[in-house]
């Protein structure tokens, strides 16, 4: 789905009710040793042939607002609709290559401006109606339609100008500019049934709460505030799925979620807190009943220095700030060491990330030297460094409710004081905080980005995005600009990656951010399942391929939970 195609998305640090899109996409694998595609859990090999049956009960941290794939803006919708809707093409979780799904094949014109998809002829929606080019056209036109509440998607489809239905099973997209991600966007949106949605108000269509798609699972019911139930679509043309049902239980509170898991009412619990992971998921009884699984989250935490401010305009000062922040210690003390320190802007296990770059070490004396070199000396003897009459005194903006940001801020405040830098902390509720950052009304802040396995850094780092785009810190660098402009038109993956690696090196040198770390995603899964894996791709878990040997199955096809 297209909302995941953008490379970097604001990630909400704390309140699960809002958005957190863990998007992992667009990874093009060429050499087999480059990307590790999956982590398999300690599933026993002796489980025998996979069999269908049983349910998977998952936790949703918040209720999706709607299951209309076009107007939905949250990741929770995607977690559910991933099973209900298909797109023309998609990445294979196993190989990370693009593969046709609803499309049979596709061709790209030599100028890379026209994308023609031939559709499969045997696809039917869950209500029995055949899926044709008209449905693809209808969905695309809804994305482009200004009366449809899909502003978040329209940004990404700006360059895909039009769609043309050539015959019932062929569509052609036309773009205004060549772009290496255009294929994924053109073929990446979920195809919605025209015959259902064309009648009535699209934004408030009743089927927004009762999706009808072409996917491997069909919608059964949505019990508001409680659960969403899907059942296997046995007429599905593609790969076989094993669980009879996938049930999503809405559990907001993380303590309650782990408790429900221990009671056996949840089979999968994601986003455990480091504390729960270390202290509350141990003991022989727990280990007998559950797998513990962790992988590097598709994202990273950072501190952004607003480069428009006098103190942070100088790269020596930004470097000094990084030297003053004990990232190892913070990671160890705040997050039980569950994460990895990063040095750049791409996914740590992705093909672009350059592991040869060493993180700047924690080194206060080097920081002092750099500050003095940059002219920040305590001239007036008041204990605070100054330059040209400006004292080094800034405000650190954080979002309220983010416990991590609060702890980080307190540590920074103490450490900065030691070297004569005054930092005050200001907390805002999320919407206000976001507005402040968006309006560039901050000196420094901490946030996290979600990143795909391989994406386009343009919107976060290009100078054209410094005033209104996601380049909040105001990073302007001619060499970096050139890399990003050319990168968008570079269709050879290896060349493009080499270019983006250069960008990583520039960012490391310039330190517009102090890159903090990539956190671990912490998951527990009931042990009755076999073939449990975490893929290096999008939502990482793929419960539809989990199976339970007959004698261990817990729920029957029709019976309800006991």
């Amino acid at each position, binding site marked *: 789905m297209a*909302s995941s195609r*953008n*490379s*970097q*998305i*604001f990630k909400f640090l704390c309140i699960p*009710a809002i958005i957190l*899109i863990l998007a992992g996409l667009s990874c093009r694998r060429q050499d087999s040793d480059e990307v590790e595609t999956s982590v398999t859990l300690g599933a026993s090999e002796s489980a025998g042939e996979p069999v269908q049956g049983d349910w998977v009960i998952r936790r949703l941290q918040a209720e999706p*607002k*709607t299951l209309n794939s076009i*107007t939905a*803006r*949250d990741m929770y919708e995607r977690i559910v609709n991933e099973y209900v809707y298909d797109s023309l093409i998609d990445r294979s979780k196993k190989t990370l290559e693009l593969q046709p799904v609803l499309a049979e094949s596709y061709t790209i014109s030599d100028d890379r401006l026209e994308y023609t998809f031939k559709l499969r002829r045997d696809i039917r929606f869950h209500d029995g109606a055949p899926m044709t080019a008209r449905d693809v056209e209808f969905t695309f036109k809804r994305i482009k339609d*200004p009366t449809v*509440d899909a*502003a*978040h998607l*329209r*940004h*990404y489809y*700006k*360059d895909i100008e039009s769609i043309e239905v050539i015959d019932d099973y062929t569509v052609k997209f036309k773009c205004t500019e060549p772009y290496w991600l255009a294929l994924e966007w053109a073929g990446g949106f979920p195809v919605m049934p025209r015959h259902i949605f064309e009648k009535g*108000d699209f*934004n*408030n269509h009743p089927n927004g709460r009762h999706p009808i798609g072409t996917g491997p699972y069909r919608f059964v019911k949505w019990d*508001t*505030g*409680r659960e969403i139930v899907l059942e296997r679509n046995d007429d599905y043309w593609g790969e076989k799925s094993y669980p009879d049902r996938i049930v999503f*239980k*809405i*559990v*907001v*509170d993380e*303590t*309650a979620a782990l*408790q*429900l898991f*221990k*009671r056996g009412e949840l089979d999968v619990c994601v986003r455990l807190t480091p504390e729960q992971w270390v202290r509350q998921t141990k*003991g022989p*009884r727990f280990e007998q009943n559950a797998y513990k699984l962790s992988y590097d989250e598709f994202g990273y935490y950072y501190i952004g220095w607003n480069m428009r401010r006098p103190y942070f305009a100088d790269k020596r000062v930004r470097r000094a700030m990084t030297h003053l922040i004990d990232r190892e210690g913070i990671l160890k003390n705040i997050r039980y060491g569950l994460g990895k320190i990063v040095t750049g802007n791409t996914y740590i296990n992705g093909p672009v990330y350059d592991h040869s770059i060493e993180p700047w070490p924690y080194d206060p004396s080097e920081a002092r030297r750099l500050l003095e070199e940059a002219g920040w000396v305590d001239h007036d003897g008041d204990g605070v460094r100054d330059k040209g009459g400006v004292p080094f005194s800034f405000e650190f903006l954080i979002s309220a409710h983010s416990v991590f940001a609060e702890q980080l801020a307190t540590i920074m405040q103490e450490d900065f004081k030691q070297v004569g830098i005054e930092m005050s902390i200001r907390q805002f509720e*999320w*919407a*206000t905080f*976001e*507005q*402040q950052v*968006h309006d560039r009304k901050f000196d420094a802040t901490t946030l996290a980005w979600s990143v795909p396995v391989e994406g*386009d850094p343009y*919107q*976060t780092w290009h100078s*054209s*995005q410094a*005033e*209104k*785009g*996601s380049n909040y810190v105001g990073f302007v660098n001619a060499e970096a600009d050139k890399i990003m402009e050319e990168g968008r038109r570079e269709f050879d993956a290896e060349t493009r990656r080499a270019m983006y690696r250069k960008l990583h090196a520039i960012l490391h040198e310039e330190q517009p951010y102090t890159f903090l770390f990539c956190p671990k995603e912490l998951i527990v899964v009931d042990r009755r399942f076999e073939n449990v894996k975490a893929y290096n791709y999008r939502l990482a878990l793929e419960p539809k391929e989990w199976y339970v040997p007959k004698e261990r199955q817990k729920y029957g096809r029709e019976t*309800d*939970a*006991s």
Partner: protein
Amino acid sequence: MRAYIIRRLLLAIPTLLGITAVTFLIIQLAPGNPAAMASRLGGEGLTDDAMSREIVEQTKKLYGLDKPIPVQYALWLKRLVTFDFGTSYKDHRTVLEKILERLPVSLQLSLTSIFLVYLFAVPIGVYSSTHQYSLSDNAITVFLFILYSLPNFWVATLLIMFLGGGDFLNVFPIYGLVSDNYEQLAFWGRVGDRLWHLVLPITCLTYGGLASISRFGRVGMLEAIRQDYVRTARAKGVSEKVVIFKHAFRNSIIPIVTLLAALLPAMLGGSVIVESIFSIPGMGQLAFESILARDYPVIMGVTTISALLTLIGILLADICYALVDPRISLE
């Protein structure tokens, strides 16, 4: 009495108007803009300024935010007359539908809890006032103060960890208000199932109110007991039971009746934490989420409904005054 009620109901209209006008203004003035948020949530996009501004403008138009605030308010009022609160920005469902889905859940929790608060608080208050400074009074005082200072989320967490299965006792369910097999149960099975689910959340919602109301009860009663008419009654040789329950009690109860009016809206709004820990889809969560998301129509809908409930609560409290104290006349 009827004239009084009608007059009060009429007076409620300007009050409600005032409340909604102020709320409307405040939420619009608060930083954060739903149209910009809607287009931003998917990331800033690979876009130029003009394009993103255009998309934000389109979204504003879609949400009806392109008009000046007074006009927006007038339009909102116009729709309100027909009980149309508009549609949510988030899912485009009507606000009324969203509220009606959750209001019964919240009322079920808060009314039960208020009932229990009064059921226990009044006798406790009477008991500790008639046994002032005795060991048992002091013990109750200490105990109630401890209860009062325990934060809700902490108690709720402890309850689910120790009584909700997992590593300790598995006594109570902790998810929602009914079991998964609720539909298959017989009538009494359903009642039992629902009550069983209510135990923990109701406990969390009740103990705080219980602690404060019983203190108010105690103070009110102590004051009443010192009045001349009580001394007179005692002097006449009326039995202690009659003195306490007939003469003193009715006079002492007025302040805690007043509190009833304040308790209902507080419980509707203040149960966010309990609702999220026990996965109960109530009004608190709806209100909280809509504020965070700047979902104006839902915020307005929730505010109007709770304002209405508060006004009704106050009216009921006033009517109760007349019932408990014949000296108060509502004419």
